[in-house]
């Protein structure tokens, strides 16, 4: 056989072209121009056939020309090939949507002071014996109530202290929103009530006029997760207005009174606002942006701001108007300048400077002060119009919208990198102060700040959001299940399960040890009364969430958490494939291609005698499937003890369940498991799992490719992680500090020039 006949495009290229054009098409002394361009494969092939190689009799023609064209096109010539070959770099990025929302809340918040969230839980309750809520002398009781859910009967909160037909109560404090989205607040009472939320003037719910038989009052409000909002609830059993009837003193019929304060988290079912989300402390109101934004690019696994669109540009304009309107309507409060102040224009100009500085995360240059503030005040006479123009310009400015622009790499950039890494938001006052005094220059200084910042509610919220994404439960999945097989598994149960998962994560991640391995190894879970009866655990019906350990060896942290088991399942049967894909992709960080074509799962009724495992084996038997399913299925099968709602079972169709499985590591070793505890032990100690987690956490927090921070960054961070007993909190601190210590793209470019 002649070698020439079977040569690949690469071989031909190396033999006939590389001497002039370079092995990677980079060019040579003689032919300096690199082989890059925008011709198509066909055009390239024609060109090659006509004229290549130059100065040689033996031309490259026909099929050979075609092969070479395909090879160079795909390897280095085309735009996509170039992009692929480029070394990862830190790209200029705009704020992501999450960052934008957090940043504008904090931008306005810095003019109000921080919200405190200490150890106290519940709401302050002030009880008045009459309808006169404003009279301190008629207050007969003051206490902290864990939740608002009372049935006062016909007498009142306490015997003999209240006038049965006219007492009133005020609850006040603050509420922590656990996640971002549209909330619904619900007040249930047969009497008058009103609720203020994140607004001290206008009530969110005004049912002070009792009218008709409505006993349920609802109102929706968009809240950012990980933030605390002021709340006040007033209740009155009394009639309002004037009663001048003659029989006023006559004994009135006895009337019952009750009240409950509930909420409905985004995509969840209503519940009494739990004690863990309430605090008796007063906090300032927060600005929450409601302008909708187009979603960020999440195509490579994490949201990033490396592209813009017309819709995004429009959203930043609409948002700038919303924010400026809000500031204008709270101008006296935020600027601290009274309307009648004599030097109001000068003071408002100063306020605009401070606003711009906080938005840009650094002091203004002379030029910036001129452009963003002074010039706006010189253009218009009305001082309000000048303020508004200045605000709009600042909010549309690249210095606000983009991250660390210009690459000055000073202490202010460091402050921004830290705060965006941990909070997705602007530096706080303390960070800016540290930056101003040059206290963010060394690694220990950065670590000190990051350690302070890591316990902030904003970091908790960011870590929470990361986990929801990592566990594939963002957006909230719809867990409708077969009601004949799983009676009692309704929307409320699904909603409770999500809470149960969140409590578990909170418990592991924010404990002292913050031990990542416990996510796999823990044998307990959080259940309340409703879930306990569903999962066969003995708890009194009305119980609130508490830690319970079902039979030993049954559960293994997130691996068996019923919320995830139910998510990775069909309505009636488990889904070893979904479970296996989750383990392979999220936990082990394996790249899996989507199936070559869409498959409908084999319906169980078609093979009534087969177990789930046997049915999956049957469907994925073809060789083409096994490339991926050879990894997916044996991982997923180890979880077959858990049915479509995550209940433990040891039999399916009266046959014992086979939970054996295996995994072929990247190093080529086959690991075998029987059941989930085996799997958990392997995953908890696996360097593949650690590395995948480090990489994914880094990407979510820093929003730049980790490889742009050096080829060894992943393994260095993994070693740090392992050396610190897989402490997630310490890892976040380390990642934040490391993201600062890298050269900025602009600087490396300048060096190159």
């Amino acid at each position: 056989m002649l070698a020439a006949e079977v040569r690949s495009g690469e071989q031909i290229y190396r033999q006939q072209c590389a001497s002039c054009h370079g092995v990677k098409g980079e060019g040579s002394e003689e032919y300096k121009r690199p082989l890059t361009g925008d011709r198509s494969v066909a055009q390239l092939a024609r060109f090659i056939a006509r004229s290549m190689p130059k100065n040689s009799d033996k031309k490259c023609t026909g099929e050979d020309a075609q092969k070479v064209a395909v090879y160079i096109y795909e390897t280095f010539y085309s735009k996509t090939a170039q992009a692929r070959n480029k070394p990862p770099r830190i790209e200029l990025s705009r704020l992501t949507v999450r960052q934008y929302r957090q940043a504008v809340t904090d931008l306005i918040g810095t003019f109000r002071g921080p919200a405190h969230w200490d150890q106290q839980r519940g709401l302050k309750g002030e009880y008045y014996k009459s309808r006169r809520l404003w009279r301190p002398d008629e207050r007969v009781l003051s206490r902290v109530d864990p939740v608002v859910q009372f049935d006062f009967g016909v007498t009142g909160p306490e015997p003999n202290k209240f006038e049965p037909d006219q007492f009133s109560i005020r609850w006040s404090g603050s509420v922590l929103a656990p996640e971002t989205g549209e909330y619904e607040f619900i007040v249930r009472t047969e009497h008058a009530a009103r609720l203020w939320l994140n607004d001290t003037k206008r009530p969110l719910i005004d049912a002070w006029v009792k009218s008709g038989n409505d006993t349920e009052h609802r109102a929706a409000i968009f809240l950012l997760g990980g933030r605390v909002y002021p709340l006040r609830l007033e209740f009155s059993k009394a009639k309002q207005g004037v009663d001048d009837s003659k029989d006023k003193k006559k004994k009135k019929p006895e009337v019952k009174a009750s009240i409950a304060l509930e909420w409905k988290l985004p995509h969840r079912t209503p519940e009494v606002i739990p004690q863990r989300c309430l605090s008796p402390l007063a906090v300032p109101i927060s600005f929450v942006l409601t302008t909708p934004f187009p979603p960020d690019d999440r195509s490579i696994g994490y949201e990033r701001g490396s592209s813009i669109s017309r819709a995004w540009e429009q959203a930043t304009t609409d948002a700038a108007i919303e924010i400026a309107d809000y500031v204008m309507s709270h101008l006296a409060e935020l600027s601290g300048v009274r309307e009648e102040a004599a030097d109001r224009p000068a003071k408002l100009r100063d306020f605009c400077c401070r606003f711009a500085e906080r938005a840009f995360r650094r002091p203004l240059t002379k030029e910036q002060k001129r452009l963003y503030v002074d010039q706006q005040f010189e253009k218009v006479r009305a001082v309000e119009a000048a303020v508004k123009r200045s605000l709009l310009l600042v909010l549309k400015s690249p210095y606000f919208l983009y991250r660390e622009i210009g690459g000055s790499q000073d202490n202010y950039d460091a402050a921004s990198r830290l705060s965006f890494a941990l909070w997705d938001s602007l530096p706080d006052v303390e960070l800016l102060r540290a930056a101003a005094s040059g206290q963010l220059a060394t690694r220990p200084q950065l670590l000190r700040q990051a350690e302070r910042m890591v316990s902030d509610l904003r970091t908790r919220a960011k870590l929470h959001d990361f986990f929801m994404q990592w566990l594939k439960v963002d957006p909230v999945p719809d867990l409708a299940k077969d009601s004949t097989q799983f009676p009692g598994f309704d929307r409320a149960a699904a909603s409770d399960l999500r809470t149960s998962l969140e409590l578990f994560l909170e418990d592991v991640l924010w404990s002292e040890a913050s031990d990542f391995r416990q996510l796999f190894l823990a044998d307990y879970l959080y259940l309340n009364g409703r879930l306990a009866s569903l999962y066969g655990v003995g708890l009194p019906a009305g119980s609130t969430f508490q830690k319970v350990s079902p039979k030993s060896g049954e559960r293994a942290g997130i691996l068996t958490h019923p919320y995830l088991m139910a998510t990775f399942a069909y309505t009636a049967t488990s889904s070893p494939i979904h479970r296996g894909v989750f383990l392979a992709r999220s936990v082990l960080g394996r790249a899996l291609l989507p199936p070559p074509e869409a498959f409908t799962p084999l319906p169980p009724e078609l093979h009534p005698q087969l177990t789930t495992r046997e049915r999956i084996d049957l469907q994925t038997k073809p060789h083409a499937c096994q490339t991926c399913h050879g990894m997916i299925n044996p991982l997923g099968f180890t979880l077959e003890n858990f049915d479509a709602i995550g209940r433990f079972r040891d039999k399916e169709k009266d046959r014992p369940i086979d939970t054996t499985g295996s995994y072929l590591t990247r190093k080529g070793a086959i690991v075998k498991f029987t059941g989930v505890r085996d799997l958990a032990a392997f995953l908890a100690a696996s360097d593949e799992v650690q590395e995948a987690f480090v990489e994914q956490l880094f990407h979510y927090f820093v929003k730049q490719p980790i490889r742009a921070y050096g080829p060894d960054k992943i393994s260095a961070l993994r070693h740090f992680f392992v050396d610190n007993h897989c402490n997630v909190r310490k890892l976040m601190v380390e990642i934040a500090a490391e993201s600062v210590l890298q050269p900025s793209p602009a600087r490396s470019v300048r060096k190159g020039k």
Partner: protein
Amino acid sequence: MTTNQTRREFLRDLGISAAALPFILNLPSLGFANQRQRKQRLVFLFSPNGVIPSAFWPEEEGPLTTLKESLKPLEPFKERTLILHGVCDKVRGDGDNHMRGIGCLLTGIELFPGNIQGGSHTPAGWASGLSIDQEIKNHLQANPATRTRFGSLEFGVLVPDRADTWTRMIYAGPNKPIAPIDDPYQMFNKLYGRMKDQEHLKSILDDLQEDLRKVRSVVSTEDRRLLEEHAAFVREMEQELKASKEQDVGHAVPELEPGIKTENDNMPRISKMQIDLMVNSFAADFARVASLQFTNSVGQARMRWLKINEGHHELSHHPDSDKDAVDKLIRINKWYCEQMAYLAKRLAETPEPGGGGSLLDNTLLVWTNELGKGNSHTLDNIPFVLVGNGLDFKMGRSIKYPKVPHNRLLLSLAHGMGHRIKTFGNPDFCSAGPLPKLS
């Protein structure tokens, strides 16, 4: 989206591009939404505490000759005025007469039981149905030809900052009172805020481009692409803003006297500002239905500018024998009537855009009250004074009805606006249909 559609959006729905807008809007035939039928508008004006009948009602049925003292300000519009006597609010149930007076006035239906206690009556809550203006607005908004940006606008003057049965006249549905906007600056923002924003945006765009240029020079070539795209989007916005210049209103944005606080003594100025805004919003075709609520049922305006220091409600309880109180009440109602006359005058002076005649030729004003007479708290002979030619009613007359339920008048207004409903509010009061003799 039906309630918020702007004319721009409407035209966009028609498939007319932004570039064509400046030309199209200059053509009277397409410049405004409905050109086939004449535009019709309906405005309710409310003042509280009843009237002094002898100084209010004409003696006779038939063409209006002289007007009584309280109605004197309408003298210039006598030919376009229709006074309806004998229309009674027959709705009963929970609540005192002031509450039912305002709560059932435009809803024609009972109040829900509740916790608002007035005098010795049973306590009540909100009305159990929507008000006729909202019914008509919903009808107009459902049809693209009569749809406007807001549909209806609810103005107020010195409405107390307190939501209860006595302060609400307009209802979007059962238990859904709508608070009137009694701060002219707030109303201005609602009407023109977007235009002001565009003006501000336009002014900052050059500065923004300048800064984007500067920033571009300090980033790497690879990163520059992103900023160039950004600059291109900003340029697009600039061009769009240029193209959309002022087209949204078709007239100059009114200038408001700055710094007027919503306080009792500013009532005349606030009233004028609100009326001016209402006329402007009609000229811009922002809405076809509006209401203007002076104070509230039991309202306590102190008209010191008329040398009256007592509160209105307090005065209204004085007996007929108290000549001084009666004189003051006549003057108070005359002042309210002046407000209606000012609105009529402004409408008569303003040409109907895209058509012949004036705004008043296509607008009917309905001035009403929660009581017939203050010191008796009667719900009989509720004042209904109509001005303007918005509906095809025969104006310039006084009609005396034999104590007809006011639901029938509400029906007539709906029919007059092209909404032919069979009943409105409590159907028991509607069986005889719309009122006769109106057209």
